[in-house]
């Protein structure tokens, strides 16, 4: 069953950690300030030094053990090597995934607000490493203000000659285009993001072929999260070795923890991976509000399985430990809930989210998410039967792994694990009997 993790923080001397993704510099979002802080120097070096050939850049990123921050935690450098060899006649694309719609996640927005140039520089370096000439930043439509801010800064970057044709007099050319979404969680899924960019309804595609083989408009494409790309300039500046030494060994690097819910100081915090969840709650986020007791933690966005207060003991925030503890790292967007939280009502709202956001392509997902919501609502209203709980778990099994994209799994996991881990609460809301109408008999007795 569940393996008890070691219980040691893997974040080392995190209290003295020097922030690098969101360093404490006033007005870092301005090009002048960013450059004064050494920004774009890495990119200049990459273009002008013989050492930094495109394969060398990819090699360094592989060395750093940087893993995707978009949810799946896939090694970034490895993903880059999937791109086919360069053919001058075949366009190649990079997509920066700034769709950030996973409930509980709000770190990419802060990165775009406070350090957009780090993201631009990361995109440029990724384009350089993979010889890509066009990069799209897919930003969710709700972030209208942040799109305006980023476009203003991007214009300055163009004027400065860091983006465009023959950048800084070199052979290398790249365009960056900001694409505005219009409100659909599913656009965060990489293949549906590609459809959305192509100006279609955002339906996920069957994989394989993977984006590196057949991406936007059928051309080789790499998709990375905003935070993943923001790590790239830092890796080249300070070395892959440096990056791999931060935090947990197999999931290293600085990471943005988005902490929300019933804590005293919610917000985005930058610390190494491998922080103890208890440290994050007590020492980082200022403890529980009103001195309440902790009830549950969702460690990485709505689709990651919920952990009870008893389960987080000694658990650190990195992919391996969280997997052993029965959950996932996801996006690092943590929701902290106190003892007064109504878990049944909360689960009902989560199932509503997935029902609302299912694209409707696959029957298990389109119908399944609807039934999950129906049945959990029924339990919330006190109309459910105990056997509904087993029905729900059975329904989850019928959804998992049977659909085009992972949204169906993402919808099933919260239901499965919340029922497993808070079963008494669900049972207390259900009618006691197995057979409808049997309670009448009981009262007669």
């Amino acid at each position, binding site marked *: 069953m569940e393996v008890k993790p070691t219980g040691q923080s893997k974040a080392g001397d995190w209290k003295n950690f020097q922030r690098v993704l969101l360093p404490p510099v006033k007005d870092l979002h301005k090009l002048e300030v960013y450059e004064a802080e050494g920004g774009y120097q890495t990119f200049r070096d990459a273009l002008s030094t013989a050492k930094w050939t495109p394969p060398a850049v990819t090699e360094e990123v592989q060395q750093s053990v940087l893993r995707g921050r978009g949810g799946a935690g896939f090694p970034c450098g490895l993903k880059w090597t999937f791109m086919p060899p360069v053919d001058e006649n075949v366009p190649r694309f990079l997509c920066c995934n700034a769709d950030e719609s996973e409930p509980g996640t709000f770190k990419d927005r802060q990165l775009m607000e406070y350090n957009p140039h780090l993201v631009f520089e990361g995109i440029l370096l990724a384009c350089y490493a993979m010889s890509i000439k066009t990069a799209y930043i897919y930003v969710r439509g709700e972030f209208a203000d942040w799109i305006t801010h980023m476009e203003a800064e991007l214009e300055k970057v163009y004027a400065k000659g860091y983006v465009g044709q023959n950048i800084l007099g070199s052979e290398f050319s790249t365009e960056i285009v900001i694409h505005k979404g*219009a*409100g659909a969680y599913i656009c965060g899924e990489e293949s549906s993001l590609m459809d959305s960019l192509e*100006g*279609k309804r955002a339906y996920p595609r069957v994989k394989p072929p993977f984006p590196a083989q057949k991406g936007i408009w059928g051309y080789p494409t790499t998709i990375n999260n905003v935070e993943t790309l923001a790590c790239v300039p830092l890796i080249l500046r300070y070395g892959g070795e440096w990056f791999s030494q931060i935090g947990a060994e197999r999931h290293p690097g600085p990471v943005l923890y988005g902490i929300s819910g019933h804590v005293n*100081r919610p917000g985005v915090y930058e610390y190494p991976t491998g922080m103890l969840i208890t440290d994050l709650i007590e020492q980082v986020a200022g403890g529980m509000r009103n001195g309440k007791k902790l009830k549950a933690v969702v460690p990485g966005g709505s689709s990651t399985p919920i952990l009870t207060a008893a389960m987080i003991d000694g658990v650190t925030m990195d992919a391996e430990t969280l997997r052993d503890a029965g959950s996932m790292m996801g996006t690092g967007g943590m929701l902290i809930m106190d003892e007064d*939280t109504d878990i049944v009502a909360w689960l009902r709202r989560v199932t509503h989210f997935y029902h609302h956001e299912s694209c409707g392509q696959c029957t298990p997902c389109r119908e399944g998410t609807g039934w999950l919501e129906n049945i959990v609502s029924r339990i919330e209203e006190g109309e459910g039967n105990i056997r509904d709980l087993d029905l729900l778990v059975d329904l989850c099994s019928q959804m998992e792994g049977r659909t085009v994209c992972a949204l169906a799994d993402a919808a099933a996991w919260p239901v499965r694990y919340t029922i497993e881990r808070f079963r008494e609460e669900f049972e207390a809301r259900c009618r006691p009997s197995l057979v409808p109408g049997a309670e009448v008999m009981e009262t007669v007795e």
Partner: protein
Amino acid sequence: MTNFIKDPVVMMAERNPDPVFSNDELVFSDQEKRLIERWKSQYPTVDGAIMRVLWLAQEKFGFLPPEVIRLTADEVGIPYANAYGVATFYTQYYKKKRGKHVLDVCTCFSCQVCGGYDILHYLESKLGIHVGETTDDGLFTLQEVECLGACGSAPMLQVTNGRYVMDLTHERVDALIDTLRKGKTPEFTSVTLPQDEDELGGNRRSDVKEFQASSPRPVSETVR
């Protein structure tokens, strides 16, 4: 179950409602056309520009009835059916007319456990409408939306696909409604990073007037 089959006349009327805009109104200005051309040039095929052009059309006309969608399709140079498909897929494109200000209250996930429903119900009673409805004076439409990516500042809402108003309390909601009634737009608010409150004293962007520290907010009484 015959009642599933609608009267064909009603169905036709729903699909092809009487146009709201006259042909004279249905034009893009030269400046807008230049923007559209630029967007079209940013993608390998012109299709990629449709989302941007729909946004432009919605800002100009307020919502997207069929004749406006047809205009965008013609302007981009793609079939009407494709543009219609896109316009109906994404929730932020309004197919029906809304109030002047649309209040999108987040009640998802973190906002839910921090009192998103309290804010929603408070707005319902304050404006005298149910969620999904528009006030009689056409000023406000109230909607419930999914996570807007500002969970650390829960509960929060968005005004008409634009400004985020965060860390809501009943007083803040009152102030917001006042501001909007006066015809003003709420300020862009920067969320401070809690770690910055020690080192930069809070606001790390000097070009932003309003900023909000991540301070504890009252806990909602019921988590619904």
